[in-house]
């Protein structure tokens, strides 16, 4: 794309991870080509993406034959055999694909993928497991992202003590050392069928006069310890 945003994607492997990545990208208007050796998987995903091709993802000649050179990003999500994902990653880099993201199953698998040229390695099971464990330990925490070591963005329900106060009145920054970067609200509405629906609204970088209401979700950035203390307010 003219603004540098990638738009053409190649997904090798139409298993659970690969198919979900492909479908999500496609929903956002990207041109997605999916490759898998399994005919049934290709058939299942073909309605959701621009191109779905049954072939061996480790076969460089076969990949070249479907014209993937112009792809912005290739995602390697072949999970069943580690050697296949390693070979596919190598083939893609040798073909000159600029960005290759590879899914790893283990740490050593990840290290090898990095060694053979993967630009990014993802560990979906490990990362999801960590998120789940954090969520179970801290039920009020909806989500948590490390921005850099010691600094987090966290998402959680607004503490009751701040309910009805503006951001300025709450003096969140002065008192707690964190910054509210967004407030999520769910606005009651009716859908096209006339049934009740809660529409999510996001107030990004809310101004100081914005009132925090009960039940709203805050996105907060700050040092880990300070975010944790702020979150523990009742």
């Amino acid at each position, binding site marked *: 794309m003219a603004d540098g945003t990638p738009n053409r994607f190649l997904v090798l492997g139409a298993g659970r991870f690969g198919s979900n990545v492909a479908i999500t990208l496609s929903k956002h208007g990207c041109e997605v080509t999916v490759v898998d050796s399994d005919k049934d998987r290709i058939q299942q995903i073909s309605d959701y993406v621009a191109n779905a091709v049954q072939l061996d993802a480790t076969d460089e000649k076969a990949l070249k034959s479907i014209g993937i050179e112009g792809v912005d990003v290739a995602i390697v999500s072949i999970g069943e055999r580690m050697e296949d994902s390693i070979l596919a990653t190598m083939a893609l880099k040798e073909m000159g694909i600029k960005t290759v993201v590879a899914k790893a199953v283990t740490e050593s698998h990840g290290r090898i993928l990095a060694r053979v040229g993967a630009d990014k390695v993802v560990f979906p099971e490990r990362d999801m497991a960590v*998120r*789940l464990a954090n969520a179970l330990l801290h039920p009020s925490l*909806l989500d948590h992202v490390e921005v850099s070591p010691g600094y987090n963005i966290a998402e959680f329900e607004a503490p009751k003590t701040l309910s009805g106060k503006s951001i300025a009145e709450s003096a969140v920054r002065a008192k707690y050392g964190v910054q509210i970067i967004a407030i999520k609200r769910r606005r*009651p*509405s009716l859908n096209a069928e006339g*049934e*009740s629906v*809660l529409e999510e609204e996001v107030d990004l970088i809310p101004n100081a006069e914005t009132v925090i209401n009960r039940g709203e979700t805050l996105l907060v950035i700050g040092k880990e310890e300070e975010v944790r203390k702020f979150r523990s307010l009742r």
Partner: protein
Amino acid sequence: MREKTTARKIQKLLDKLVENPQDTETRLALGKLYFLDSQFEEAVGCYRKLLEVEPRNVSGYYNLAVALTAQKKMEEAKEAFQKVLELDPDNKGAQEELAKLVSFR
């Protein structure tokens, strides 16, 4: 001004229900008015009364479930959505909402 209009509309429906407490259509409309006005407790009460009169009213259960979600009463909301699906297994809205309630983000 808007609050007065809503209050008037609510009162009109309440008056109708005094004349005919079994009028589920009016009670459903009242529940939705309460919901839109963020009076979730009242909305829930309305839908529950409706379901006493018509225990198989799909719309009643659906709107009840959404109002319970607004109150963050997630377990009760799940039960209400499940009831919708018992009565109307193909109800896409209930399928999606229930999946949202149980999925881990």
